[in-house]
């Protein structure tokens, strides 16, 4: 393994994704995640964030999507040649957008499926289960409930907890904060930070809550219309004027009240 791959855990090179053989969605996206880094993927609805993440974890096949160009390497291995479960075994797991809990399984069973690929014994799994419950006490209360009947937020916690159970080295998080109460959003990111710092887990997160995401991430990519239109250190990005306007709120400091927003055509769009 070369030096370059040694400190990048994931690199995406110029990929193009087509759905249904006709719908071109990603038009050349490249990004890298350094080992032990937290990288944010930002962008408007439909920019292709989810598609990018699915391409990485090789889940596109299930949606009749195809990576037609470019390559993705996880720890120096070509992802396309691996099956999704190989990827999980190698430590790359995705939290899918829209929760996707196993509705008929109880919360606890959901969490345990997360540990499906693990081979390090039930004691370790038990320990991690307790860890997840400690992070999300709400889940402990609901552990015997069928996931399908739990509230949206509970399901979101369950999905994140499930990924944590795999003991991964890299987590792809698709909109982790969606539907979570504000203090939980902070907590989630604290968890991300802790896992990152203590266990060295790398993160790639697609997140709409830009301000929080940029606060925790070290690097960011902005996606629009299936292309990367901007990237940079998280700090730089959050100071960028355009980013401020589009993703963080007009004034740099306090944002304007939602009541007063007027609709106007934005001055500049990267790809308009």
């Amino acid at each position, binding site marked *: 393994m070369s030096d370059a791959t040694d400190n990048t855990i994931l690199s995406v090179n110029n990929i193009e994704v087509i759905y249904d053989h006709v719908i071109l969605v990603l038009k050349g996206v490249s990004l890298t995640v350094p080992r032990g880094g937290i990288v944010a993927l930002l962008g408007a609805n439909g920019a292709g964030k989810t598609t990018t993440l699915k391409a990485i*974890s090789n*889940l596109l*096949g*299930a*949606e009749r999507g195809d990576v037609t160009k470019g390559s993705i390497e996880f720890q120096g291995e070509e992802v396309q040649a691996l*099956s*999704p*479960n190989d*990827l*999980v*075994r190698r430590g790359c*797991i*995705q*939290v*899918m957008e829209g929760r*996707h*809990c*196993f*509705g*008929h*399984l109880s919360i606890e*069973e*959901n969490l*345990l*499926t*997360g540990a*499906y*690929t693990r081979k390090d014994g039930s004691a370790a799994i038990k320990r991690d289960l307790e860890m997840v419950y400690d992070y999300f006490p709400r889940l402990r209360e609901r552990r015997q409930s*069928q996931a*399908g*009947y739990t509230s949206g937020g509970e399901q979101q916690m369950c999905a994140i907890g*499930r*990924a944590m159970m*795999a003991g991964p080295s890299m987590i792809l998080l698709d909109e982790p904060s969606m539907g979570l109460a504000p203090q939980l959003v902070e907590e989630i990111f604290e968890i991300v930070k802790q896992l990152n710092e203590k266990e060295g887990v790398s993160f790639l997160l697609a997140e709409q809550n830009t301000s929080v995401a940029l606060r925790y991430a070290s690097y960011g990519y902005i996606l629009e219309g299936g292309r990367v239109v901007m990237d940079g250190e998280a700090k730089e990005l959050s100071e960028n004027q355009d980013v401020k306007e589009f993703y963080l709120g007009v004034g740099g400091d306090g944002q304007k009240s939602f009541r007063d927003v007027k609709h106007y055509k934005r001055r500049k769009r990267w790809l308009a």
Partner: protein
Amino acid sequence: MNFFIETVLSGLMAGVMYALVALGFVLIFKASGIFNFAQGVMCLFAALTFVGVQEKFGLPVWLALPAAVGVMILLAWLIERLVLRHLVNQDPIILFMATIGLAYVLEGLGDLMWGSDVKVLDIGLPSGAFDYLLDEFNIYLEKLEVVAAVIASVLVAALAVFFQKTRVGRALRAVADDHQAALSVGISLNTIWVIVWSVAGIVALVAGIMWGSKSGVQFSLSLIALKALPVLILGGFTSIPGAIIGGLIIGVGEKVAEVYMGPFVGGAVENWFAYMLALAFLLVRPQGLFGEKIIERV
């Protein structure tokens, strides 16, 4: 009274035979959400293979059995490779349709390989009634069906434990809920499917052998699936114990109906009665007696 007991008893036994077939359906549905139309044909195919290798290659029974099991596993592997793998995450009805295609292929293949004639299947399972019961108590109970009942109970117990208690069992249920999410947590659908379809194939072989001992092995064997369907909805698509309990209820219900109601309305009521009975239960519990509740939440 004696006769009533006898009717119930043979209903129970017929129910066990239905349950054997229903079990195969339940397995696949529970583990991948697929309503496997081909289950009946798989019974036929398995039994044909079992008899076929004895007839054509002169294998003894103790070799034919593992050979048939091997063929069923191979079949499961092929099905995964050629069909299921390409249909991940599709609607249930699409997968259902694919299993219909599969049923066609197996039907043609079975006939082509082993011929359409009736084949005698005799592996020395006891047949006829228990003489003792018949002589002493005038109760008629078939030996073959008692054997079937024992086998079915063992199968059910084993499979129920497997699904509820083991890691793989949990994964199977997860797959049934959401293919993509299952993939995302590292469950290999490919392996899971091969496992499930192999197990279902083996269950089909067992069912095929039991039914084949009864009626010879030939095309009609595939139609026993129709007998299993009311059992399936009554017990619930997703419940292994449901298959057997549903089987018993349907078995007793239809026999009692045929024997006690049939003569007054011209007979042959058992088929629709079984379905009506299942329907009546469904109106009270739309997911069947033991099926997992259909989740309705917004």
